[in-house]
């Protein structure tokens, strides 16, 4: 008789108060170890690398661009698969025929189901937040300004929890080998349907979890003014409510005692109320130039611009950008400097190019928007240049050369029209005494100089500079002017720009 002496001595009965939480923690630990989502982590990591990490790293290191991808791309890849795995976990007892066996244990069935859902969601969160940490960690090393955006991640985390809850409930209610794929496909279809609803300008569809700030390009928000959390708050409210409603409904079916049923009913009702409130609030959303505004939730403090010190190029006409755009300064300078050096010092020419936030937004059909373009104004004149909405180097197939081409097709034509004029036909032409497409001699001289300067500045064709008929005297004059030395061109412009702009110079007076 020696074995009995090795057994530990129990000092009194276990404390009743600590049994519940301990049991729940132990159950959660077991579920964490036995969870299918754990084995999905390598696949989820691979999908994250493929669909989110690589595109993120191809973009400039701006928090708004990468935060947007963490909400859109990561969730598009994760949510359906996570819902499918959660459905698989939810249908586990039904598939294995152990539902009756676990139904008669001391632990309420709802508590057991919540433990399984919680464990599944924990691993799903590990996958999602782990990916977020990697992307934000690398961005923190690369970024020249700003800090991580928390709201897109909050929406992502809420979407992960809601996907797992929906999938888990579906798997529990309909335990079948088909539950998991059907749930995953349904979530895919729901996400796609949301995109279509948004395209049809349905205001309530703004609640769609992949919607970051409506149709606004990601670089229009969170840089010059704070990130507007209005829409994100409604999305979190909706998703959290959806999760609570679904889990509460599960409890109504599975809970054992009266108190548990009451708790489940309260959770379901509160969840439905929260989800409905989220949808209702999303219906009042309206796009502003710096984000989606929901009047009930909007904090006017978020409308104030963020102070910053710009980074400027060293040139005759300096180009000044927001510090977040520091990496684009060489490209922007290379795009604009050829023309700016031609016109520097001329009357009415800009003394500086200053990057600004888009302040004007026009709604278009199919949820499209149009942002304000570059303008020149002030005294001394300054070019206000919004870069928002442009295809940036690394975005899709956009190269630095393509980015420069975009800039040259926007800024120089505007600058030349303002400085020289000649962008409209004269009155005679409109009255029909001259061919409707033929400008007057004075306007023709303006167009010749514009065409010459556009050629020198590398402005792509069809960018707003009126084309001259090939082989015509005007075309020859433009080529002649463009072939002059830069100093000669500049000297002629200094002497004649005022008269040229006033329409007092004809084609014959050009050098």
């Amino acid at each position, binding site marked *: 008789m020696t074995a009995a002496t090795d057994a530990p001595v129990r000092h009194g009965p276990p404390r009743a108060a600590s049994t519940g939480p301990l049991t729940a923690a132990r159950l959660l630990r077991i579920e964490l170890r036995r969870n299918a989502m754990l084995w999905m982590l390598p696949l989820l990591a691979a999908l994250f690398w493929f669909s989110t990490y690589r595109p993120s790293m191809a973009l400039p290191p701006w928090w708004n661009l990468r935060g947007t991808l963490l909400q859109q791309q990561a969730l598009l890849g994760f949510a359906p698969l996570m819902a499918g795995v959660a459905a698989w976990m939810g249908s586990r007892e039904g598939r294995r025929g152990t539902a009756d066996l676990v139904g008669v244990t001391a632990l309420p069935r709802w508590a057991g189901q919540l433990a399984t859902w919680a464990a599944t969601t924990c691993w799903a969160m590990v996958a999602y937040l782990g990916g977020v940490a990697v992307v934000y960690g690398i961005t923190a090393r690369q970024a020249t300004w700003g800090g991580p955006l928390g709201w897109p991640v909050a929406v992502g985390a809420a979407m992960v929890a809601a996907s797992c809850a929906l999938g888990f409930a579906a798997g529990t209610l309909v335990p079948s080998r088909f539950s998991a794929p059907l749930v995953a496909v349904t979530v895919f*279809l729901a996400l796609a349907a949301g995109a279509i609803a948004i395209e049809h300008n349905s205001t309530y569809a703004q609640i769609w979890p992949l919607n970051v700030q409506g149709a606004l390009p990601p670089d229009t928000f969170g840089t010059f003014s704070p990130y507007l959390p209005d829409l994100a708050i409604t999305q979190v409210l909706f998703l959290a409510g959806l999760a609570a409603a679904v889990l509460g409904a599960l409890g109504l079916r599975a809970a054992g005692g009266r108190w548990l049923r009451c708790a489940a009913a309260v959770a379901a009702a509160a969840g439905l109320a929260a989800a409905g409130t989220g949808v209702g609030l999303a219906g009042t959303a309206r796009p502003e130039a710096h984000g989606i505004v929901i009047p009930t939730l909007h904090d006017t403090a978020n409308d104030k611009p963020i102070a910053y010190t710009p980074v400027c190029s060293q040139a005759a006409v300096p180009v000044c950008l927001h510090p977040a755009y520091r990496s684009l300064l060489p490209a922007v300078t290379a795009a604009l400097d050829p023309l700016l050096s031609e016109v520097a010092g001329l009357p009415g020419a800009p003394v500086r190019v200053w990057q600004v936030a888009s302040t004007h937004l026009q709604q278009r059909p199919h949820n499209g928007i149009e942002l304000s373009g570059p303008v020149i104004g002030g005294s001394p004149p300054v070019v206000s240049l919004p870069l928002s909405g442009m295809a940036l180097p690394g975005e899709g197939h956009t190269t630095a050369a393509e980015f420069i081409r975009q800039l040259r097709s926007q800024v120089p034509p505007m600058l030349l029209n303002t400085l020289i004029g000649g962008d409209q036909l004269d009155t005679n032409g409109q009255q029909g005494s001259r061919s409707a497409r033929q400008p007057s001699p004075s306007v023709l001289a303006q167009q010749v100089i514009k065409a010459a300067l556009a050629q020198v500045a590398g402005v792509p064709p069809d960018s707003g500079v009126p084309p001259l008929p090939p082989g015509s005297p005007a075309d020859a004059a433009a080529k002649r002017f463009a072939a002059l030395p830069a100093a000669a061109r500049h000297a002629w412009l200094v002497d004649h720009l005022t008269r040229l702009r006033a329409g007092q110079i004809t084609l014959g007076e050009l050098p």
Partner: protein
Amino acid sequence: MTPAGVDRPPSGLASATGMRPAGPRLAGLRLVRLYLASRRALTCLLVLVAFAVVLRTALHWMPRSGLASRQLPLTIQAGAAALIGVTTRSPFGEPERATGRWLPLLRLGTVTLLAGAAVGALVAGSASAHLAGGTLGMLRDLAGLTGIALLTAALLGGTLAWVGPLAYLVVTLHALQAAWTTPWVWPVRPPDDRGAALCAALVLAAGVAVITMRGARDTAGE
């Protein structure tokens, strides 16, 4: 008394119960019916019909061009392929493998039947509507996705066969956005692209071959 007599039923049993012994043909049909029932083939067919209805509805509402016009049909095709993959799961496991002489033929027949039903359902669902990529593209994409589902079933087990096509769908959606051109992501290529069709056909052939010969992997506890 020889052991050979044990294999034969007692001669008076059939007449005593009023039943005639089933012929080989009836026994074969019964085997096919039981095999299809064990794979939940009927449920699969019903869900495929539901997918056809969803596709028809989606084609009515969604834009005729753009990413969404490709995304929704592809999702439904991936779902159909996932269903076919899931049906490969055997509820009997090793005993069936040890005793089922006709298993390869039954597996091949079931996969062919369900894949044909999926094609029929989706073609019917997209009839008289604009399907981006056309019927040819749909056939190619569905074939490739089915191959992925069958390969996943062989690798991970029948219950997880849906993971492969849906993970591939995620890759495809990203590739459509990024305008990839590799034929291994066949949905991004035009419907008449030979390279993409060849890749999809290769994957389907590999999947069908593996499932026919080996069946889905048996997973413990399922």
